[in-house]
């Protein structure tokens, strides 16, 4: 369980004033759940993950847990561009106090998972975003966390990596929690059972992800207007007719 208690988070704005990401939020995040985080751009989804992972502290309130939580796993997060892939993995092993044999085991496993081959000994700054995602995710799955925080990691990957990632998500879900941020609602529904909706500085927990998604969709429809299904179908038919006369 991660206990979020009266958490307020704000950032200073250029020209003075504060931008509130969260206002006096309290929530328990249960363990052994896969939870999707929903919310528009800039709502604070990544900030929430950073706070849960301990990378950043809330301005007020506390986030307490006795469980082990991963660092927020995003594209290139936790990787130092001037170091090679291998050196980055080594760094993560060192700060976590792994023995030599464990370190060797992790490095071999990351190399196999990421399929980076000779790029593994090239500086990370020469990597594509997909390669960065592979290495970052590859390291984390070698550690046994109670909570895995994943921030849009699969969005940049190719089909091969996405398939591997989904397989790992399934394995993680057997014994740990998955907290997953993505704008791809399809893959969110596929991987998560519950949802947290982030809006106007508040968090709302939905036991069933479909409830969360429908609330989120209401928000999108309020902004964009409801998609007109019939009109869309007609347009699609027209397109088909045009391309295949």
């Amino acid at each position, binding site marked *: 369980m991660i206990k979020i208690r009266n958490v307020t988070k704000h*950032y200073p704005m250029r020209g003075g004033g504060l931008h509130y990401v969260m206002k006096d939020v309290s929530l328990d995040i249960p363990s052994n759940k896969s939870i999707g985080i929903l919310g528009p751009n800039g709502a604070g989804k990544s900030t929430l993950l*950073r706070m849960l*992972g*301990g*990378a*950043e*502290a809330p*301005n007020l309130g506390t986030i307490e847990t006795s469980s*082990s*939580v991963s*660092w*927020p796993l995003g594209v*290139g*997060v*936790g*990787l*130092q*561009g*001037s*170091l090679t892939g291998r*050196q980055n993995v*080594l*760094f*993560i092993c*060192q*700060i*976590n*106090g*792994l023995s030599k044999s*464990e370190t060797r*085991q*992790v490095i071999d496993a990351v190399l196999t998972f990421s399929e980076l081959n000779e790029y593994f000994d090239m500086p990370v700054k020469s990597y594509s975003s997909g390669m960065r995602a592979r290495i970052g995710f590859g390291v984390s*799955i*070698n*550690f*046994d966390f109670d909570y895995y925080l994943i921030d849009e990691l699969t969005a940049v990957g190719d089909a091969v990596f996405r398939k591997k990632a989904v397989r790992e998500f399934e394995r993680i879900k057997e014994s740990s929690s998955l907290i997953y941020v993505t704008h791809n609602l399809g893959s969110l529904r596929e991987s998560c059972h519950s949802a947290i909706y982030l809006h106007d500085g508040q968090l709302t927990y939905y036991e069933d992800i479909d409830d969360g998604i429908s609330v989120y969709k209401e928000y999108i429809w309020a902004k964009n207007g409801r998609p007109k299904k019939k009109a869309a179908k007609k347009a699609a038919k027209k397109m088909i007719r045009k391309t295949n006369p």
Partner: protein
Amino acid sequence: MPIRIKEQSPWKSQALVIKALLGRELITRTGKYKLGALWILLDPLLSVIVLGLILGPFLGRSSGEIPYAFFLLCGFMLLQMFTGQLTAGINAISANQGLLVFKKVQPIDPFIARFIFQLFANTLALIIFCLVAYWLGIVISLDQLPVVAACIILTWVIGAGLGLHAGIVCQRFNELEKVIAYVQRPLLFLSCVIIPLDVIPPEYRVYLLYNPLVHTIESMRMALFPSYITESVNLYYPAAWAIAACTLGLVTYRNNRHFLTQR
């Protein structure tokens, strides 16, 4: 099988992080050059050779019994011990931003790692230079090694405290970086690196004595060469500076540590 991370005491955990950061520092500092770690020696040596060639003809006899090149080298190494810390501190956060995402890596750790790196690199260079000087026939006294060590450590601590402070303030006000670069330049003349304190007229000497580096640099020369005497320098004054600088740095860190992890 995934590996469960063992719980560690805060001290042990920080020691692991600093050790890993030191490794990272060594790789990126030396890895990009063909000559690698040799630059730790070449950097001060080349600076001293260039300075010595320009200043030697004019000031060469001012240093008394100490050969001017070695006189210059002593001062330059200690000055570098100080200015190197400032530069290291200013870039410590930005150069390690990617690694601050790990909960175990606290924002002060990159500073500590860089300062330790500076201490070891500069002390190593100084020892090697002393050995070479000894081999060349320059008589260096080892009777007062504790004083030499104190001079090095005090300069290092003053630099570390101010470097920590500067590195954090620079995150808020980028202009400070420029200001420090300008302020650093005259230090070469104001810290008795190129001329002994005794050569300077007494009416100006009083002002120079406010600079703690004058005290550590001249004290170190006195300790290494008993025949070289400069009055009115002591180690209590730089020690007071060291305590003040450390306090300033740590208080600044304490007040800004959450700001430093914000992105």
